[in-house]
C-alpha cells in the first residue's frame, strides 16, 4: 500500500493543475470541463454509466479469458512441436500489425452489434502478448534442471507440468498485465465502432451531443476498470507464485 503513495500524489497534482487551469482560465465546460465538473456530471448520470460499464467489463473479462486459455493451449503445442512454432509465430506477429482503429468497424460490420465483435477484438490484442510470454517463459528453463529431469527419466508431460510451466509463470504474469491494459481499450474500440451497450458507445453518444463532461467521465471509468483488473492480476500472481514474494520478488534458485 505504501508504494501507492507517490503515484497518488502525482495523480492528485495533475488533477489539481487541471482544475486550476479551468477555474482561473475561465474555460467553457463544453470545451474542457474541470475535474470537479466531470465528477458531478458522471455522478448525476451514474445509473446510465453503470449500465454501460457492466457490458464492457463482461466483454473484456470474457474475451480475455478466452484469449488466455487459447494462448495456453497454443503455447503447449508450440512447446511440444517446433513445427507448430514455425508455423504459428509469423501469423501471430502479423496479427499485431493490424491497425485496430480500422479493424474495429469492419469486425462490427461482419459480426453485428452484439458481444462477438468485442470478444474478437479483445482476443486479437491479448492473445499475442500472453502466448509470447508463455513461450518465452518456457525457454528460460534451467538447462541443468532439464537434464536432471531427463536423467531421472521424466516424460514430456511431467517435465512440462513440473518444470517448464512453473518456470514460465513469472513471465506469464508479466504478459498478462500487459494484455489486460490493452483489453479494456480494445473493448471500448469495438463499442465505439457500433454496439448496443457499453462504455464505448456511451462515449460516442455523449460526444455527438457535445457532452464532453460525460465523455471524460466514461474515460475515467474505463481507466478505473483497467486499473482494477491490473491490480487483480497482481493479487492472483501473489497467490500463484508464493516462492517469489517470500524473498521480496527476487527470482533466484540456488547457486
Amino acid at each position, binding site marked *: 500500500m505504501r508504494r501507492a503513495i507517490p503515484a497518488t500524489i502525482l495523480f492528485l497534482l495533475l488533477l489539481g493543475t487541471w482544475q486550476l487551469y479551468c477555474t482561473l482560465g475561465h474555460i467553457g465546460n463544453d470545451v474542457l470541463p474541470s475535474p470537479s465538473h466531470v465528477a458531478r456530471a458522471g455522478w448525476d448520470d451514474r445509473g446510465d454509466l453503470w449500465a454501460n460499464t457492466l457490458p464492457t467489463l463482461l466483454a473484456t473479462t470474457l474475451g480475455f479469458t478466452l484469449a488466455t486459455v487459447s494462448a495456453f493451449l497454443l503455447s503447449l503445442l508450440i512447446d511440444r512441436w517446433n513445427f507448430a512454432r514455425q508455423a504459428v509465430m509469423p501469423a501471430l506477429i502479423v496479427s499485431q500489425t493490424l491497425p485496430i482503429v480500422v479493424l474495429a468497424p469492419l469486425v462490427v460490420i461482419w459480426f453485428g452489434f452484439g458481444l462477438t465483435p468485442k470478444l474478437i477484438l479483445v482476443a486479437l490484442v491479448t492473445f499475442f502478448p500472453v502466448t509470447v510470454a508463455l513461450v518465452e517463459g518456457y525457454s528460460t528453463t*534451467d538447462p*541443468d*534442471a532439464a*537434464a*536432471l*529431469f*531427463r*536423467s*531421472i*527419466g*521424466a516424460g514430456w508431460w*511431467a517435465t512440462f507440468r*513440473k*518444470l517448464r510451466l*512453473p518456470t514460465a*509463470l513469472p513471465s506469464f504474469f508479466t504478459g498478462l498485465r500487459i494484455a489486460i491494459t490493452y483489453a479494456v481499450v480494445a473493448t471500448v474500440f469495438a463499442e465505439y465502432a457500433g454496439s448496443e451497450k457499453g462504455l464505448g458507445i456511451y462515449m460516442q453518444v455523449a460526444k455527438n451531443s457535445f457532452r464532453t463532461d460525460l465523455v471524460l467521465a466514461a474515460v475515467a471509468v474505463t481507466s478505473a476498470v483497467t486499473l482494477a483488473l491490473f491490480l487483480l492480476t497482481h493479487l492472483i500472481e501473489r497467490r500463484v*507464485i508464493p*516462492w*517469489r514474494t*517470500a*524473498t521480496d520478488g*527476487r*527470482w*533466484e*534458485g*540456488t*547457486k
Partner: protein
Amino acid sequence: MTSAGLSVQGLSAHWDDLHVLEGLSFTVEEGQFTSIVGPSGCGKSSTFAALTGEIPLESGNVSVAGRPVVEHGREFAWMPQSGALLPWRSALDNATLGLELSGTPRAQARERALPFLEGFGLEGFEDSWPSELSGGMAQRVALLRTVLMDRPVLLLDEPFGALDALTRRAMQDWLERLWEKHRWTVVLITHDVREAVFLSDRVFVYSDRPAAVAATVEIDIPRPRRLELIQTPQFARMESEILTHLSLPSSGSK
C-alpha cells in the same frame, strides 16, 4: 566380496564438434567412494553426461553391477553441478522430486524422506523455499534428492564447489560420516584435491581434453576418517602425488 559397481570401458564422446572423451576407462567397486579430479574444462562433467545419456556414446561400454547399461539414466542418480533445486518447491518437495518423477506418490515419497531429514540437517526447514536456505543447506537438499532416488550409483558433480572454505570443510566431514553409515557407490567430481583424498577410496586423475584417466591413485587410509587426518604426513603424500599427476601433462603450473 568386492564386485564391479560401475565399469566404464573405452568411452568416447563429442559435444557437436568438440571431442571431450577419448577411450575413457575406469572401474568403481560396489560400495566404494571414488573421485575424479582434472583440469577445468577437461571433460569431467561430460563423463556424467555420457553416463546419464545426455551425450550419445560413439564407442565404449558401461556396465553397472555386471550388467551392461542399455537405457542410460536408470542406474544413475545424478546431482548436477548447480544443484538445480526448483525455486517453486519447498526443501522437502525438492528432496522428493526424484522419487515423484519415478512414479512414487507424493505422500509415500515424503514418508521415505522423513527419516533422512535429521541426518541431512534439514529438520525444521522442510517447508522453506530454496531461496531461503543457506548454500550448504541447499546442497544437502540436492544431495538428499539424489540419495533418495535409490539408484545403484551416485554421480555427484562438485557438490561443494560453490561453498565457502569453512562450510566446505564442514560438509566434507559430514559427508564422510554419512557415507560410512550408508556405503553408497559414489563417483564425485571435485576441484579440491584435499576433498578427493579425504573422502575417497580411489581417485582418478584426468588428462586434458579429450579426457582419459591419466592416473589412478588408491587412497588406503583407514576409516573412519576425521578432519585431523589432513595434518598427517600420509595424507600430505597422497595429496602431493595427485598434484604431481595434475601438473604433468601441460604447462607445469599448479
